[in-house]
């Protein structure tokens, strides 16, 4: 398990990086955190002739909060995003989701933007980008462009990025006032790729659900957002009628997703699972929408007691 020979490039600026990428074209790969790329190279599943290592490029390591969005630079590690109080305050979903990305050691190296660009259907952060109606900032030989999430993903492990382009940031839009979010996933082992996962957002206006939407992990080949407003909208949050609407939300999710069978679970199981996770996550989002103070770091830390509403003692999967 040793990689095939490659040329290592270590540009210091975005311009240099883009110039190298333009030069090496399809024979080049960007190396950031390397948590997916290095194993692929070691197993010789890919043998690019050039690695463009962007770890020394300046200006890519910042998290910037604006009234509209949280902008995450290409060298922000998952753990940096996880620990950023400012990002958490601005958009709690980020931490709710990122703690589910693999294990701490991987989060310490892996980058959030890298995970989005890798476009793995089992990645958490592409689903989060979608739920936030986010964008990816890209610099190429022809300048800067900003690509909306909807246009960014082409298929599993496939995006619209051109060989000469470097993704320099992801922009996660903040939620409308009165919106709560939650993230839930279930994996075979702690930190594994999820069998299924869901990110939900739910807006409460004057005590009534005015909007709800969800995006998914491991059950759609590219991120997709399902509008659940038609099924849970109009109900008083955390009321009996809201609870009844959850079953219809689960049904809508079941119909929306297109999971595949693999060695860990059947497609049918994943369909059931993601529907159930949604059913359990929506009330939590409603809770967050109505009492944001509950949304503290402690309850989101992996291993903390879960708040699965049907089953208070059960923490096998995480609902945060």
């Amino acid at each position, binding site marked *: *398990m*040793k*990689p*095939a*020979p490659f040329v290592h490039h270590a540009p210091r600026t975005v311009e240099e990086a883009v110039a190298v990428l333009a030069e090496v074209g399809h024979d080049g790969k960007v190396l950031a955190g390397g948590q997916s790329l290095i194993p692929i190279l070691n*197993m*010789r599943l890919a043998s690019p002739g050039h690695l463009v290592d962007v770890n020394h490029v300046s200006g890519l390591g910042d998290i910037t909060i604006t009234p509209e969005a949280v902008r995450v630079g290409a060298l922000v590690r998952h753990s940096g995003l996880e620990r950023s109080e400012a990002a958490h305050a601005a958009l709690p979903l980020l931490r709710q989701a990122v703690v589910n990305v693999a294990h701490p050691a991987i989060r310490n190296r892996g980058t959030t933007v890298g995970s989005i660009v890798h476009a793995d259907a089992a990645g958490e952060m592409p689903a989060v980008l979608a739920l936030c109606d986010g964008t990816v900032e890209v610099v190429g030989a022809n300048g800067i462009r900003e690509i909306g999430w909807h246009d960014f993903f082409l298929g599993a492990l496939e995006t619209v990025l051109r060989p000469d382009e470097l993704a320099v940031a992801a922009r996660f839009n903040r939620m409308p006032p009165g919106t709560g979010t939650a993230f839930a996933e*279930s994996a*075979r*082992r*702690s*930190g*594994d*790729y999820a*069998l299924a996962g869901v990110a939900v957002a739910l807006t409460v206006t004057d005590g009534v659900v005015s909007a709800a939407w969800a995006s998914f992990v491991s059950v759609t080949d590219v991120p997709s957002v399902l509008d659940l407003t038609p099924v849970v909208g109009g109900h008083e949050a955390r009321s009996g009628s809201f609870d009844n609407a959850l079953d219809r939300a689960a049904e809508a999710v079941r119909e929306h997703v297109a999971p595949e069978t693999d*060695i*860990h*679970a*059947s497609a*049918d*199981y994943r369909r*059931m*699972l993601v529907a*159930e996770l949604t059913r359990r996550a929506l009330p939590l989002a409603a809770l967050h929408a109505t009492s944001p103070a509950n949304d503290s770091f402690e309850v989101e830390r992996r*291993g903390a007691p879960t708040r699965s509403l*049907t*089953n*208070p*003692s*059960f*923490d*096998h*999967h995480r609902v945060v």
Partner: protein
Amino acid sequence: MSTRLFGTPIKRKEDPRLVTGGGRYLDDLGHDALAAAFVRSPHAHARVVDIDADDAFELDGVLGIYAHDDLPGKVGEPLPLLIPHPALTHGRTGYALAREEVNHVGEPLVMVVATDRYVAEDACQRIRVRYEPLPVVVGIESARDGAAVVHPDVPGNVAAHLTQVVGDVDAALATAPHTLTLELDIERSASTPLEGRGVYAQWDDERDELRMYSSTQTSTGVRAAVAAKLDLPLAKVECIAPDVGGGFGVKIMHPWPEEVLVPWAARLLRQPVKWVEDRREHFVSAAHERGQLHTVTVGFDDDGHLLALDVKFWHDNGAYTPYGIIVPIITATQLLGPYKPGAYRVEFWSLYTNTVLVTPYRGAGRPQGCFAMERTMDAIADRLGLDRAQVRARNFILPSEMPYDHGLLFQDGRPLKYDSGDFPATLNKLKALVGWDDFATERAAAVAQGRKVGLGIGCYVEGTGVGPYEGSHVQVETSGRVNVSIGLTSQGQGHETVFAQIVADELGVRMEDVFVTTGDTRKMGYAVGTFASRAAVMSGSAVALAARRVRAKALRIAADALEVSPDDLEIVEGTVQVKGAPATSMTLGTVSVLSNPLRYAFDEATQAATQFAGTFDPQKPPVAEGEEPGLEGKDFYSPTQATFANGMHAAIVETDPVTAEIRILRYCVVHDCGPMINPMIVEGQVHGGVAQGVGGALYERMVYDDSGQLLNASFMDFLMPYASEVPTIETDHLETPSPLNPLGIKGAGEAGCIPVSAVIASAIEDAEGFPITRMPISPADLWALRRRYAAGEIRPLRRASHPSESAARAEEPTP
């Protein structure tokens, strides 16, 4: 002696070194060595048509590329069949490099030696092999069917067929008031030590000598096999097991192709060569275990007493049988656990498949047997509406019946005769620990919350400490330092600690003065290896015997010097002294000086042993007749039979009513390995075993597709449990001594993993209300079973296994 160390939970001597990065594992050695890498078959079954390595030779840094044609003499002959057996009528072993046919994905075909592993792998990628694919046999059903065969000269893929019978099973079944038949399935798993295999060989061209290091569980076995293969005198081969990062069975198998080829290449190239296995190689070219299908028919009376047990099982032995049929023999015999089976017939077929070969993995056939027996016990309880623990207790062999001879032949070719154990006491401890009798209340509370919980149980007996022998050498230096050598290897079990504990007690020295060396053929040439939970029993006993010899010699020499009788002497903290008059004394270091009469002193202390010192009686020879110089002794322990440890586990499991996710709420272990040398190490062994058992029960499987590709050959997809998946393990111990060895001890290494699949299946079945017959089980599997159950395709349990439920059930009319 002051405080006895035997039985004390002292911290492990080796840990400060190991946990601070001081370990010297195989890949920590030989940084300048050449690197070997292998081209391995991508086909499960194929004829090798052509190998073209021309492009690879052109790479800078490639020193050699070898295929089977290049292997001379015995190196090119089939690898040895380690444990022949009369029933193994069609034993087959592979070649170090495949000759004309490959029989599993991962089988080595070509070895490349290059300046480093990167270049070696580059070269491998350039080698083109043409194959002619052959029909593939994957899985027991396909092997049993026999439409395709792995080896053309092995009809029906049957490597071995063995039946053992005690009593008249057919008659007992015919007259039994009740009979049941169960079809059971255990899938493949593997040892998967965190350090894979590895070999590093140095050839000394001036002396014609080979020194090799291998990450092995048997350095003596590897040494003998390599000497034979390479046609070298044994005296010219040294084999050392450095620190080894786990074995769990896979490293007792030997010689691996690489263990022959790497030394051969080192001699050929006259340069050190090293091969360190990577993870993918380990999955596809080391060994797996477990895979068996069982059909159990049992006859029993109204009280649940076994009258007859008729077991047929099919064992997947993979592509070759170098380790013989040890695994299915263990299954066939250890299946019986703590029970008297009535009449017993066990018949197995060991079958070839085009998959990685099968050799013992911790538990070594017992988890499968335990699963079959314990599922049967639960089924009997369910059929009769009896408490599951009670049915077990009714069939126990009682302490008064020990030693108990089952009338079968065990894996060591000797009678399966239990030496010790108090099974009713073990069960009582377990029931108290888990709260067996109160579980009905717990369950009712959970059910009221909409939760599903279940309680499971599993009992086992484990034959440990099999022969033929182990030995030890103990030596006291003039400084008082005590050197202990054992030939058996260590893979992290704490041998440096427990054997030092034994020697410190036996010799009367301080623990910190004792230094243990393991698995180095330069220090101890006669040894068997670390497997079958045998290190403590075999080497522990040998160490005690050797230390006793040294002690006796020390007392003889000191008695002479102090002019007292040896009977009046004792040794306390390294000083030999007169009992009741400790001022009359000499240190063991001084005794060591006197034990070796000198012409040349090498320090002040040793001047006492020189010829003009007046120490020795001029009328006697300096070394007395019958004595040897040096304060040292050697002894061997060779028992007539294995010693039998036992244990019982219980678990409380919760299953999510919707998602079918499975969570172990409590896991309780009661274990009896006799007197514990170091209870902390025993607990550690039990914990590790349970962790591997949980892997086998809920996470790990080897997923082969129909073409023989292993689909999950990485730790991303082979789900070895993390610490987060392993429950807190509650333990209690019983210490029933074995009458068979000087310390009364029994083995503990494998125990933890043996009953886990049985226990978890029992608990899930209890939570769900329908039978669980196949392990491992994932949430998706359980969810699919629930759907089949809801569709009426699976019959329900009678749900009578709990006192509260039997009471409730008693009020209902019997269906």
